């Protein structure tokens, strides 16, 4: 991106591929990090109402919230797999200059969905045992500045 900025500003050239490759890297980074973001307790939610409930109410809400996450991950998975397949049989390439197969780019989504599903399945287990399913997990090593943006 910086290279593109400089070259466009100073050399009068535009590298179409720079914009594209940054975008594709970000997409992959996003889907790969989506489960990890959960494990670090950084997906945004509000616990205020739940915190005010008696323990059994908390247990129910935590179970439901984890289940909702799991269902959403599975919808993502089942919605994206046929699309990856079709991109594969169609052989569509990404727009303009990079010439990546679309299926390889889109594959990030089902992979992200699986990682998210694993995270929520873990959450469901933690909720079942009566723990808070969404606290940062000990192994995640969240830093002090890891506030939500």
């Amino acid at each position, binding site marked *: 991106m910086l290279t593109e900025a400089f070259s*466009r500003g100073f050399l*009068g*050239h*535009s590298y*179409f591929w720079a*914009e594209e490759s940054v975008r594709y890297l970000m997409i992959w980074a996003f889907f790969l990090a989506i489960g990890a973001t959960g494990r670090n307790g950084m997906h945004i939610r509000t616990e205020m109402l739940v915190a005010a409930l008696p323990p059994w109410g908390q247990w129910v809400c935590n179970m439901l919230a984890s289940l909702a996450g799991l269902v959403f991950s599975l919808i993502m998975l089942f919605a994206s797999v*046929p*699309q990856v397949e*079709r*991109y594969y*049989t*169609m*052989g*569509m*390439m*990404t*727009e*303009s*200059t990079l010439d990546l197969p*679309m299926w390889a780019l889109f594959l990030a989504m089902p992979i992200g969905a699986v990682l998210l599903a694993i995270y929520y399945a873990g959450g469901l287990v933690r909720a079942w045992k009566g723990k808070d399913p969404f606290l940062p997990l000990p192994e995640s090593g969240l830093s002090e500045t890891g506030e939500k943006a």
Partner: protein
Amino acid sequence: AETLVLPNEVAATHWKTDYQKQFGDLVKQKTGGKIDVQVFPAGQLYNEQDALAALGTGSVQMVWPVSVRIESIAPQTGVLNLPFAVSDKMMTNACFSSGLTEIISSYVEPRGLKVLALLRTADLFFIFSGKDVKKMEDLKGTKVRVTGGRIFLDTMRRLGVSPVSMAASEMSSALSQGAIDGVFTSPAGWAEMIGISGKYAWYVPGFQLATYAVVVDGAWYDKLAPDLREAVSSSIHEIAQREWVEAKAADDKLIEKMKAQGAQFHVADEAELARWRDLAKRAVEPFDKAHPDLVAKIKKLEASCGVGG
């Protein structure tokens, strides 16, 4: 009844949506309502790239994207987007246009798609805000917003133009701020998005005549009863024939409108045109080398239909 889902990404008031609705009416009439064409304008359901990708999943049956889009599926179809690939004269010749459509379709058929027709999008030209371009050399050193494939970009560089990619929504302000010198666009883009702040137009007829490809889900189409298939096919051909003439007339009218507002509109003369064709020939060499069979097929078609240039 069969459903034919036909999404587009232009406004509901755009002429492309009109033609799609006319196509729907015609199909309905010819099939006695056995095929129900559902037009989803303005990206309500899908943008065209996504719709194209969804052909064959059962959720979309037809899309009319600009032909550049199918280049991402079959690079050979890029022949449509080469400079001087087609002209109004060639495409209003029924023999040539149906022959070309068949050739293009043959390259996407292995991917489960079919091209039924080619429609006229627009013959594109250069718009500048402060530079009165009258010949090839005047383009040297300019920054121009373009959309286009590799060969087009290569041609631009041969002309000494720095191609800039930018969202359509930003090009008008970029032009007036001087971030770019010009824009390569259609008469409609000129009249509606840029206006008279792009005072100078430089038009090389046929240099980049953009088309829409009418793409259909191949498996779905093949499974239709023969009479229904015939109804879809004849409807789209009727539309295409009419559209090609009407779209050209509409563009001419827009150019006249801009001229009336004080725009300078220069058209390349025969000698200049010959130089552009010569330049284009060199730019398309790599494509010709990569796809000799395709080039031979088209040459043969041009000769047999009597439209060769």
